[in-house]
Every structure is written in C-alpha cells, then in structure tokens.
C-alpha cells in the first residue's frame, strides 16, 4: 500500500497559506516512519484504515517537531528548501506545527482507542521534554555522550518506540512485558538513528550530500562531536569548535585520529546492534505464529538506520 499521509482535503481551505505550507513540508519527506509503521502493521494484520491512521499520526508529529525545530534553531533550510518559518512567517510555523498535533488528537480520538491516545500523548510529551533539555545544552562544549543519550532517548527514540509499539496497541495487544521489550528496542533504534544522523553532520556516510557541520555551527555538540573530543586539550577543543569545514576539523583533531575515533565509534554502535539482535530473539516468544515475520522486518532496521544501507 502506498501511503499518502497528507491530503489538502484533510485541512480547512479557509486558512490562508496553510495547505501551501504543508504541501512544501510533506512533499519532500522520505516518510520513513510511515513506512516503518506499514512494515510492522502488515504482520499484525491491521486494516488499511488503521495503518493509514498510524502512519499519518507519526508523520504529523514528526513534521510538527521539524517545523518548531527549524524555528528554534533558526535553520534557513529544511530538505534543501527554504524552511517554513522563513518562507512564510515564524508565527505560521509555530501554528502549523501546533495544528498538526491538534489534528493528531482529533484523528485518534475519532478512532476511539483510549490507550493509543494516551500513549501518543505521552510520546509527544517525551519529545517536547527532549527538545527542551536539548536547548539547554547549546554552547555546552563539554557535554558527554551519556548526557546526550538521555536527550536522544526522549527526543528521537520516542518516535521509533511509537512506530514499533503503536501497531500492537492499535491491534489491542497490551501485554506489558511485550511493550517494555519493544520500548527497549525502540530506544536502541533511536540511539542508532541519532548517532548516524550525527555522523552525517561530519560528512560520514552522507550519501544524500546533506549540508555538514550544521550542529557545530549552531553551537551544539552532537554525539559524535562529544565522542571525538573526549580527552582533548582545551586548545584542541577550541580549534574544533571553530571549524567551518571538514578540512578545519581534520586540522583540529588530526585526520588519522579522526578516522581512528570514527572506527571506535562504529565499534561501540555494533555492540548496540548486537544487543538489539538479542532483543529480537527474545521478541519471538511474545509473537503469535502469523506475527513471526515481523522479526525479519525488525532485524534489518539497524543496518538501514545506522549504516544507511537500504
């Protein structure tokens, strides 16, 4: 099923520029989270209507956070296009993000699964907490990777946890042990995704040629930056912070040292993937026979999210 999460008919026509803003926003996204929902839901035999609801929910929440993020960070571009706050107005960007979250609540409440509504509300709450705390770490050049992992567990991982748990909630499977295990797995997926995203900022496995060093230039030490600068002198860190290009980064750290630390970072994350694989094995004990195909879908996710191999 090809999921189209956004359609102009879903929104009022009398709000000026709203549909133009959403058209810009949704037309260039990859919709990875919606696809993940679809892959998980297939094995739980959810109806097309439910799958569409879940896919739309996660994409609305994700894109709402992007609208707000870009304004908070004053990022001029989103997906290589002018960011909404700049193209329209900051006020419209805030309101458009809020409106997406409101539509999520409307859609879910019409569907009527109270646990799904509750879980979604908790997820949005975690996402916002992560955003709030992350904002306090701007210009904190000594932040450690453990502290950043806490932020990412709230911010990034909460969406991935939702993607693998919400289909079970929609299927009215509320087994607490199952959901805690899925929660752990979602945490690990979120961690791997965020770390991969942080590597992109240093032009590592940047297959889509995205702009680099955006985090550093905004005053934010991402997880790879925190890892690579561990144990460095204040002088080296100061030089690193001022980097405007990868050449500057290599000069600050040493190119050989940079790639040594990258190899070490990758090794750490391979071990995270090994733990995730173990949890996949444990998950088989919770699934019904017709659901076992889900394991193969989940097993490939670390490769996709971290190594960016599709």
């Amino acid at each position, binding site marked *: 099923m090809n999921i189209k999460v956004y359609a102009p008919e879903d929104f009022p026509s009398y709000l000026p520029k709203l549909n133009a803003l959403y058209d810009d926003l949704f037309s260039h996204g990859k919709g990875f989270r919606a696809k993940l929902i679809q892959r998980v839901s297939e094995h739980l035999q959810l109806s097309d209507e439910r799958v569409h609801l879940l896919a739309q929910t996660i994409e609305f929440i994700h894109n709402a956070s992007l609208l707000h993020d870009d304004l908070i960070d004053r990022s001029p571009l989103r997906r290589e296009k002018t960011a909404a706050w700049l193209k329209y107005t900051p006020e419209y960007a805030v309101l458009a993000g809020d409106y997406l979250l409101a539509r999520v609540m409307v859609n879910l409440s019409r569907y009527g699964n109270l646990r799904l509504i509750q879980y979604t509300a908790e997820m949005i709450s975690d996402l916002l907490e992560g955003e709030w*705390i992350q904002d*306090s*770490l701007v210009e*904190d*050049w*000594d*932040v*450690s*990777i*453990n*502290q950043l*992992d*806490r*932020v990412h567990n709230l911010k990034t991982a909460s969406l991935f946890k939702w993607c693998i748990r919400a289909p079970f909630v929609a299927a009215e499977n509320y087994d*607490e*042990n199952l959901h*805690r*295990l899925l929660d*752990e797995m979602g945490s690990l997926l979120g961690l791997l995704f965020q770390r991969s995203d942080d590597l992109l900022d240093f032009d590592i496995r940047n297959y889509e040629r995205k702009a680099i060093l955006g985090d550093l230039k905004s005053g934010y030490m991402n997880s790879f930056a925190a*890892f690579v600068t561990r144990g460095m002198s204040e002088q080296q860190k100061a030089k690193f912070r001022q980097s405007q290009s990868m050449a500057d980064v290599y000069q600050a750290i040493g190119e050989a040292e940079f790639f040594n630390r990258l190899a070490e970072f990758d090794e*750490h994350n391979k*071990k*995270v993937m*090994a*733990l995730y694989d*173990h*949890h996949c094995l*444990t998950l088989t004990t919770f699934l019904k026979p017709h659901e076992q195909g889900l394991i193969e879908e989940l097993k490939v996710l670390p490769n996709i999210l971290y190594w960016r191999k599709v």
Partner: protein
Amino acid sequence: MTDLGTGRFVTFEKSSPEFSQYLLGSFSDKEIALPVSSLFVNTPQEQVTFQILRPQDVDRPPLWKLWFQVLRLDLLPLTLLPPVVIMILERSSLSGNPLAIWSFVALLFLHGATFCRNDYMDHMRGVDRWNEKGGSRVIQRGWLRAVSVRNIYLVLMLAAVFCSVPIFMAYPELLLDAIFAAALGIWGYSHLRSGRGPLWLSSVGVFLCLGPLLTVGFSWVMTGTASVAAVLIGAHFGLIAMLYALTRHTISMLVDDQAGLRTLPVVLGFDRMKALLSVLVIVLIITSGFVFSWAEPGLKSLTALPLVVGLSFLGRKIYAVKSPLSSALLEIPANLVSFHLLSGALLVVYLIL
C-alpha cells in the same frame, strides 16, 4: 559511553533461579555477567539482560586503581580530614594516644565499608543499572563481581567494629553517638533510594555524619570532651559534604524522576534546587568566615580568604548551570571535594600559625 564488549547476551526474569546468581556474579568462575539492560527494575517482574564475558575480555585497570575506585579513596578526605583538623585544634597527635589511632583506623574501614555497601545494594536494587553516574561502577564495568564487593564490605565492616571496641570500652557514651549516626546513615540512605520519608533526611544525615558527629566524636576520643570549636568545624565540613550529596542528586534528577524516586531535587524542581544550592554556598561562605575567626579572631582570619573567593566563584558557576545535564554541573562535586581539602589545609594553617 558504556562499552558493551563482545560476549553473548542472556535475559532472565526475577522469578528464574539463575537471576540472582547472575546478578551476584556467582554463577561461574570462568565468566562474568554484565547487566546491560533492565526492565521493570526493582519490581517482581524485573527482567535483566546480561552480557557474558570472559574475565580476560574485561579491560581491568591496575590493582591500585581498582582498590582506589571500589573504596572511593577519592572521597576519603570527606571522612578523615575533619578528624585531622580536630587533632591540630586539640594540639594532639596520634602517637601516644592509642584510642585516637583506633578511631582513625576504624573510620578508614568504615569509609570503605559504607561505599562498598552502597555499591552492592544499589547494584542489586537496580539503581546503578539505570543511573550510569551512580556508585563506583566497578560492578557494572565487570572489574569486580557483586558478591566480591559484598564480601569486601563485610570484612571492612567487621574490621571497623573490631577497631571501635576499645573506644566504646573507654567511652561508652560514644556508643550512643555511633548508633545514632549509623541509624541515621542507614535510614537516610534507604529513604533516599526508596523516595519515601522526609525529603531532607538523607541530606541532614550526610551533614551530621560527615560533620559535627564526626568531629565531636573524635574530639571526645582525643580529650574526653568536645569543644564548641569542634562543633563549628564539624558544621563547616558537614555543610560541604551535604552540598556534595545534594549536587549529586541534582545531577541524577532526570533519571530519578523517570524512575519515580521523589528525591529533594525532583520535588523542588531544577530551578529551586539550583537556588537552594546557591544559597547553601552563601551559607558556607558565612560559616567559613565564622569558623576562621572563632578560635582566634584577627588578621589570622584572612587565612580563609582563598576559600571565600573560591566559593564565590563556585556559587556563580552553580547559578549559571542551565539544566541537570549541563557539563558544568557534573564538575561541581569534584570542585566541592577540592574545597573540602582546601578548607582542611587552610584550617590547619590557621590553627598552627
């Protein structure tokens, strides 16, 4: 970043007979089990995933560093420096005073026993599994098995009790002091971890046990009495120790809040906790001035100046912290241990001059 090593994983539920063996580390002589993931911590449904490693796969430090870590010798000044200052105050020395020697040695053993017990209990309850900043981390890193840490605690505690016997035989009244301190310490700690009981209890316990109870007790052993100066010096050191404990709790407040623990920072909230810490630093500056002028007021009181200046910077540093995850906040406990050492050194200079 926690290094997961290269071993296989196994998961056990609390109800399974292997659970406690793996948690204690007593399941095998040839392998170590590191808890890497815990669900439903400290509940009957608890599930823990262990990574199984061979001892040679664990990156152990040199023996001295291992003992330094497990006995928390970095925090030994918090325990032993106040008695040293009291010795200088009373113009006494350990030689020729066997009871003072017994006290010193007993405190040394008690220090190690307390931290080993904390590490063991926090590991078994899962606290140090969800809070990667808690404890010495020797168990979580696979340096020592939990059962070994427990045994170290028992041996050190027995040694502390043995060394205390001559003191309590000479001064039976001190037994009450010791029992009160022990009860306060144990009750305060367990209330801190469970989040039940008065929120201020554990902080007051730290203040008293590493402050006035310690200095008054030692002063009594040295001289058979306790001076007002001993109480004031104890209050000064106790305040630093309390600030240390409160800062550590503030650092872990995000994790504690998510785990449902109602510690003082969780209940007060970050902004008010920050204000409280800043106020306590101001109180410490004032008490420093008081302590350094009580015994012998005059120009000698200027000995306190480096401490007062340093504490002012610390107060500003605390106030500039933006969140519980700020790296600046993580540095403050180590700064406070340094101030504790500086206090002791300056007090010694002040008393000798």
